[in-house]
C-alpha cells in the first residue's frame, strides 16, 4: 500500500514540477519566436513610457492643472477645426471631421498598447480616456499588451481569416518594425494622420516625424511621443562626464570596470553602436540612405577598433555585457558602474523620484549629438471604429493634451508637436515646467537631435558587433 | 430461496463465442461450481447471471422468470470478486452496510444487521477499520459479509479462495459453506481449481472452450468422467486406447472384460481408465483383467508406493501397498478389476486441441 502510494507521490510530484515549469515559462517561451522581430520597437516605446511623476503628491496636483487647461481648450480646438475642414479629402470613408465626430458618437475604441507602466496606464485612462468620453462620447478601452507584436499578430491573423471589417483592434501604439510590417502588408487604414484637425501642430516636413526608422509614414500613423538618447552618469563619482568618444575611451582606461553598455540586440545597446558609427563616419547622412556595403566597410573597422580597445577595461573585463537596459539600470543604481543610458531624457529623473536611482544621477549628450525618434498611433484597415481612433489620435495632438503630456508633474513626455504653432501663452506654460534635476532642457536636447539611421542599417551593425566585438 | 436456470445461454465477441449454448439448472439453496481452465467462459457466464454482461443468445431465469431485462442493481445477484474486494474509502461497517444503504434501510437497522453479520464472520469490533488495515483473509470475510447481509437471491463468487494460503482456504471453505447453508442461499462460484470445486460445491459444472462438458456431483468427475479430457482435468493419468465390442475392449496390451456399470459408449474406439488406487500389481498372469507391463519407476510415498508402468504405448500410475518393492525393468501384470474400469469417449482430437 505504502509502496504504491510512494510511486504515486513521485509521479504526482513530477507532474507538479512539470506543471509549475510549464506555468512559469510557458508563455515566455511561446512568445519568443513571434516577438523577436519586434523587440527593438517595443523597447523604444517602453523606455518612452517611463517619464513621469511617480510621487502621489505630484499626481494629486494634476486636477487643478487639467481644469485650467479645459477652460482654455475649446477656443483653440474650435479654431483648428474650422481651419482644417478641407484637408479631410484624402481620408477614406469620411468627408468632414463632423462626419467623424458623428460616426464615433457612443462608440468604443480598443487601443492595443504595451501596458507595463502603471503611470502611463493611468495617464491614458485619465487624461485621454476620461476626456474623449466626456467630450466626444467615445469610450476608450485600453488593452494592455506585453508586447506590441501581439497586436500586429492579431491584425495579421484577422486578415488571414478574411476579416476585412469589424476587427478587434482599433488603434495600436506603434513604431519601427511593427509599423513596417503592417504597412508592407497593406493592412493600415488611411491615409488619415495628415488630415485630422490637429495635424496642423505636427511638422510633417521633419524627417524624424515623416520617417519612422526610415519607413515613410505616408499618413498612416500619427505621432504621439518623442524619444531621444541621453547618456547617464553618477555625479557622485564622475564630476564631469566625457563629451566625446575619445574622452570616453580615456576615462574607461583610467577607471577600469566602471563602464559598460547593453549587448545588442538590446535597443539601447544597439543605439550605442549606432552612435559609434555616427562618430566614425565623416558625414552621418550616409546612414539616411539604404544600406551600402562599401560605406559600411569603410566605417566599421574604426568602430570595432575602438570598441575592442576599451573592452578589457569594461565592467567584468568585457567578458560579459548586460543583456538589457534594465540590467544596466540595476548596475548603475547599485553603483557597480558609473554610467548608463536612456532613450527617454526624463527617465533618469523619474528613476530618482521612484527610488531606483540615487539622487546624484545626471544626464548629458555628446558634443556630436544623440539619436531621436518618434512613436505613433496607427489604425488597422479592418478596425471596427476608425472614426473613434482618429478622435483619440486628434486629441493626443491637441495643445491641451500636449501640455499635460509634457508636464512632468502630470505626464512628462517628449513632444512630437511643433510648438511654433502654439500661442505664446502656451509656450510660456511649457517653458515653466520643472523637468527634474537629471533632465536636460528642451533646447539642449533639440539642438543635439540626430535622425535615426535607415532601417536597413541596424541589423548589419548588430551582426558586425557580434562578429567583431563580442566574438572577437 | 431461488432456483436459477440458464437456457441456451451464449455470448459472442465478434465471431468468437465466449459461452455457447449453455444449459444449466441450479436448485434453490444449492452451491454449484463453474469449473474450467482460464478463458473457458465461466466468468462470462457469471457476469451474464449478474447482468453485468448481456447474453447474445438464450435466457437467465430466476424462479422461472427471465431476468435478462432486469438491471444488475435490482437483480439480487451479488457478485464477490477475488481481488479489489472492499471499497477502499469506506470502513468495514460501511462496506458491509453498503447494500442495505442502497436498499434504503434505516441507519439503526443497518447497524444492527451489520454488527450481526460481522459477528457471524467472526469480525466483531472491526467495524471502524479501513480495508487496508485488514489481512487478506479478513478482507475476504468482510466481502462475504457484505454480500450476504442483503440476503441476495443468488450469491456469485469469483475464485473465492484463490488468494488465500492453505490454512485460510480450509477456514474460509467451512465459513462459506456453513453460512450459505444456514441462509439457504443459492450460490454459484467460478474456479479453475478442481480441488476447490470439489471441496466447496454440491455440484460441479465443467466448461471447456465456452461449452459445458459435464455436470454432476464432485465424485462423479473422479469415478465417471465423460471424456479423457475431463478425466485428465481431474488429474487422472491412466488412459489406454482400445476398441469396444460389447463387454470386451481390445487394447494394445490385451483384451479387457468390462462390467455393466460403464457408460454406454457404443462399439468403436474408446479409452479405458481406472484410478491408481483401484489397481493391483501381480507378478503372475491370469488375474482379473491382468495386462503385462514394465515397471519404469517406483516411489515410496509413506501410505503407498507409487509405481509407474509402461502399459502398451501408455504410462500408467498404480498405487501399490507401501511394502511393495519394485525396480525399473521388472515385468509385472496390472490387474484392472471389472467394477473399477471406466470407459471414456475417445476425444483425443479435443485433447490435442488444448
Amino acid at each position, binding site marked *: 500500500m505504502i509502496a504504491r502510494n510512494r510511486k504515486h507521490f513521485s509521479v504526482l510530484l513530477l507532474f507538479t514540477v512539470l506543471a509549475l515549469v510549464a506555468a512559469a515559462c510557458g508563455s515566455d517561451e511561446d512568445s519568443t519566436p513571434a516577438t523577436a522581430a519586434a523587440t527593438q520597437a517595443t523597447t523604444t516605446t517602453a523606455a518612452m513610457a517611463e517619464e513621469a511623476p511617480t510621487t502621489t503628491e505630484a499626481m494629486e496636483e494634476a486636477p487643478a492643472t487639467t481644469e485650467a487647461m479645459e477652460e482654455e481648450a475649446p477656443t483653440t480646438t474650435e479654431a483648428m477645426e474650422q481651419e482644417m475642414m478641407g484637408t479631410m479629402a484624402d481620408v477614406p470613408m469620411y468627408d468632414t471631421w463632423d462626419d467623424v465626430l458623428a460616426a464615433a458618437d457612443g462608440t468604443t475604441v480598443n487601443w492595443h498598447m504595451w501596458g507595463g507602466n502603471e503611470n502611463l496606464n493611468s495617464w491614458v485612462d485619465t487624461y485621454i480616456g476620461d476626456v474623449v468620453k466626456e467630450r466626444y462620447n467615445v469610450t476608450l478601452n485600453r488593452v494592455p499588451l506585453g508586447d506590441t507584436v501581439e497586436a500586429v499578430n492579431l491584425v495579421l491573423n484577422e486578415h488571414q481569416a478574411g476579416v476585412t471589417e469589424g476587427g478587434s483592434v482599433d488603434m495600436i501604439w506603434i513604431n519601427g518594425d511593427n509599423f513596417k510590417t503592417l504597412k508592407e502588408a497593406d493592412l493600415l487604414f488611411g491615409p488619415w494622420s495628415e488630415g485630422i484637425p490637429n495635424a496642423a501642430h505636427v511638422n510633417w516636413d521633419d524627417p524624424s516625424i515623416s520617417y519612422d526608422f526610415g519607413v515613410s509614414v505616408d499618413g498612416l500613423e500619427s505621432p504621439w511621443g518623442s524619444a531621444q538618447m541621453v547618456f547617464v552618469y553618477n555625479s557622485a563619482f564622475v564630476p564631469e562626464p566625457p563629451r566625446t568618444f575619445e574622452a570616453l575611451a580615456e576615462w574607461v582606461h583610467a577607471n577600469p570596470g566602471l563602464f559598460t553598455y547593453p549587448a545588442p540586440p538590446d535597443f539601447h545597446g544597439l543605439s550605442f553602436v549606432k552612435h559609434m558609427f555616427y562618430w566614425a563616419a565623416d558625414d552621418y547622412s550616409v546612414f539616411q540612405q539604404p544600406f551600402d556595403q562599401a560605406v559600411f566597410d569603410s566605417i566599421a573597422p574604426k568602430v570595432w577598433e575602438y570598441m575592442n580597445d576599451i573592452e578589457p577595461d569594461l565592467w567584468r573585463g568585457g567578458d560579459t555585457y548586460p543583456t538589457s537596459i534594465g540590467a544596466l539600470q540595476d548596475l548603475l543604481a547599485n553603483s557597480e558602474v558609473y554610467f548608463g543610458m536612456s532613450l527617454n531624457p526624463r527617465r533618469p529623473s523619474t528613476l530618482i523620484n521612484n527610488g531606483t536611482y540615487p539622487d546624484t544621477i545626471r544626464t548629458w549628450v555628446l558634443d556630436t549629438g544623440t539619436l531621436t525618434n518618434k512613436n505613433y498611433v496607427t489604425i488597422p484597415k479592418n478596425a471596427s471604429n476608425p472614426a473613434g481612433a482618429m478622435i483619440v489620435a486628434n486629441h493626443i495632438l491637441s495643445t491641451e493634451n500636449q501640455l499635460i503630456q509634457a508636464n512632468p508633474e502630470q505626464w512628462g513626455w517628449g513632444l512630437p508637436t511643433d510648438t511654433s504653432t502654439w500661442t505664446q501663452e502656451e509656450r510660456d506654460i511649457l517653458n515653466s515646467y520643472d523637468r527634474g534635476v537629471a533632465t536636460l532642457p528642451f533646447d539642449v536636447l533639440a539642438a543635439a537631435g540626430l535622425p535615426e539611421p535607415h532601417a536597413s542599417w541596424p541589423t548589419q551593425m548588430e551582426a558586425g558587433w557580434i562578429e567583431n566585438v563580442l566574438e572577437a | 430461496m431461488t432456483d436459477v436456470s440458464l437456457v441456451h445461454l451464449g455470448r459472442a465477441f465478434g465471431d468468437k463465442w465466449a459461452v455457447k449454448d449453455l444449459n444449466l439448472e441450479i436448485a434453490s439453496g444449492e452451491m454449484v461450481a463453474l469449473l474450467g481452465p482460464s478463458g473457458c467462459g465461466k466468468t462470462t457466464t457469471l457476469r451474464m447471471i449478474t447482468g*453485468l454482461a448481456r447474453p447474445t443468445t438464450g435466457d437467465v431465469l430466476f424462479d422461472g422468470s427471465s431476468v435478462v431485462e432486469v438491471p444488475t442493481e435490482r437483480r439480487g445477484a451479488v457478485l464477490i470478486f477475488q481481488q479489489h474486494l472492499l471499497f477502499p474509502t469506506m470502513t468495514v461497517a460501511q462496506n458491509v452496510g453498503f447494500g442495505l444503504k442502497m436498499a434504503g434501510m434505516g441507519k439503526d437497522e443497518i447497524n444492527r444487521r451489520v454488527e450481526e453479520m460481522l459477528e457471524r464472520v467472526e469480525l466483531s469490533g472491526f467495524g471502524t477499520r479501513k480495508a487496508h488495515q485488514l489481512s487478506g483473509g479478513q478482507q475476504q470475510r468482510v466481502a462475504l459479509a457484505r454480500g450476504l447481509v442483503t440476503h441476495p437471491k443468488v450469491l456469485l463468487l469469483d475464485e473465492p479462495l484463490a488468494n488465500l494460503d492453505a490454512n485460510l482456504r480450509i477456514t474460509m471453505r467451512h465459513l462459506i459453506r456453513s453460512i450459505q447453508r444456514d441462509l439457504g442461499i443459492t450460490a454459484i462460484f467460478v474456479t479453475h481449481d478442481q480441488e476447490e470445486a470439489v471441496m466447496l460445491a454440491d455440484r460441479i459444472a465443467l466448461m471447456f472452450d465456452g461449452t459445458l462438458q459435464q455436470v454432476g456431483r464432485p465424485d462423479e468427475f473422479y469415478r465417471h468422467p465423460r471424456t479423457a479430457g475431463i478425466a485428465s482435468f481431474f488429474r487422472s493419468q491412466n488412459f489406454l486406447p482400445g476398441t469396444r465390442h460389447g463387454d470386451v475392449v481390445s487394447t494394445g496390451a490385451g483384451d479387457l472384460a468390462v462390467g455393466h456399470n460403464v457408460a454406454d459408449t457404443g462399439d468403436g474406439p474408446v479409452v479405458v481408465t481406472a484410478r491408481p488406487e483401484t489397481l493391483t500389481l501381480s507378478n503372475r498372469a491370469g488375474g482379473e483383467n491382468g495386462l503385462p507391463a514394465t515397471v519404469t519407476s517406483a516411489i515410496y510415498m509413506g501410505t503407498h508406493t507409487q509405481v509407474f508402468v509402461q502399459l502398451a504405448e501408455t504410462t500408467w500410475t498404480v498405487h501399490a501397498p507401501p511394502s511393495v518393492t519394485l525396480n525399473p525393468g521388472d515385468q509385472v501384470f496390472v490387474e484392472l478389476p471389472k467394477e473399477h474400469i471406466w470407459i471414456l469417449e475417445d476425444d483425443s482430437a479435443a485433447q490435442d486441441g488444448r
Partner: protein
Amino acid sequence: MTSTSTPGPAPGPDQAVSERRLAGRRQINWLRWATVTVIVVSVVLPGVSLLLRSFAFRWHYPDVLPGEWGLDAWAYTIDDTSRVFESLGNSLRIALLTTTLALLVGMPAARALGQHQFRGKRMVEWILMMPIIVPSLVAAMGIHIVFIRLGLTATVLGVSLVHLIPATPYFVLVMSSVFANYSPALEETARTLGASKIRVFRYVTLPAISSGLLVACLFTFLISWSQYVTTVLIGSGILITLPMVLFPFLGQGNAAVAASITLIFVAPAVMVLILTSRSLGRGSTVMGGFGKV
C-alpha cells in the same frame, strides 16, 4: 492488527506487514520533512520577498530590506486603471470553464487510457502529449483563424477552448494514472449490491478518484490561469485576464507593481492548494502522504 478472536490467520504475515508499514512510515516522515523544507524555500521565501518588494520604494543592492517603503504599487493595483479586479474575474471564469471542459473531455479519455489496453494506445498517448511538446501558440495561431470565422474570439468560451490545448494533456496524464490503479470491479460489485449507476459514481467511483481528480483539476485550473499568449490572441486583447495585466510589468516594468500584481496572481492558486491539501490527505488512496505534509 492481530486479533485473538481471529481463528485462522497466523500472526506471522500480519506482523511482517506492520513492520514494513512502520518502515514505510519512517520514510514518509523523512519525505514529509524534506517536502516541507522544499516548500518553505521555494514558495514561502519568494513570497516574502514579493511582499517586501511590493511595498518597497527604494531598495538598493546590497540592502537586505528596502530603504524606503511606499503604497504606490498597491494603490495602482487596486485602482480601476490597473484592471486587476476586472481581469481577476475573467481569469476565474475562464479557468473554471476550462476545468469543466477538461473534465468532460478528459475523463472518458483518461479512463480508456488508464484501464484498457487497445491497439494504437501508444499512438493516442503520443497525440495527447503533443500539446506539451508543440508550443500552444503555434496551435492557437491556426485556431484563431477558425475561431474568427466561428465568432468565438473575444469570448470566454473561445479562450477556454484554447486553454484546453495545453491543459488537457496534464489532466489526462493525472487521471489515467488514477484510473490505472482503480479497478472497475469495485463499481461492478457495488452494482450487484443494489446501487444504480449514478449511485455507484457517487458512493464508489468519486470517493476513490476524488483526490486524483482534485489534483488534475488543480493543474488544469493553474495552466489556464497562467496562459498569456493564447489568451491575447483568441481574446483579441479585448477579453483581459490577469496575466495580461501582469506580464507587461515583468522584466522592464516597475518591480513593486509587478510584485503586488504577482501576489494577486498567485493568491487564488495558493488558496486552492491550502484548501485542497486537507482533503487530499484524508482517506486518499492516490496521494498517500502527499496531502498530509
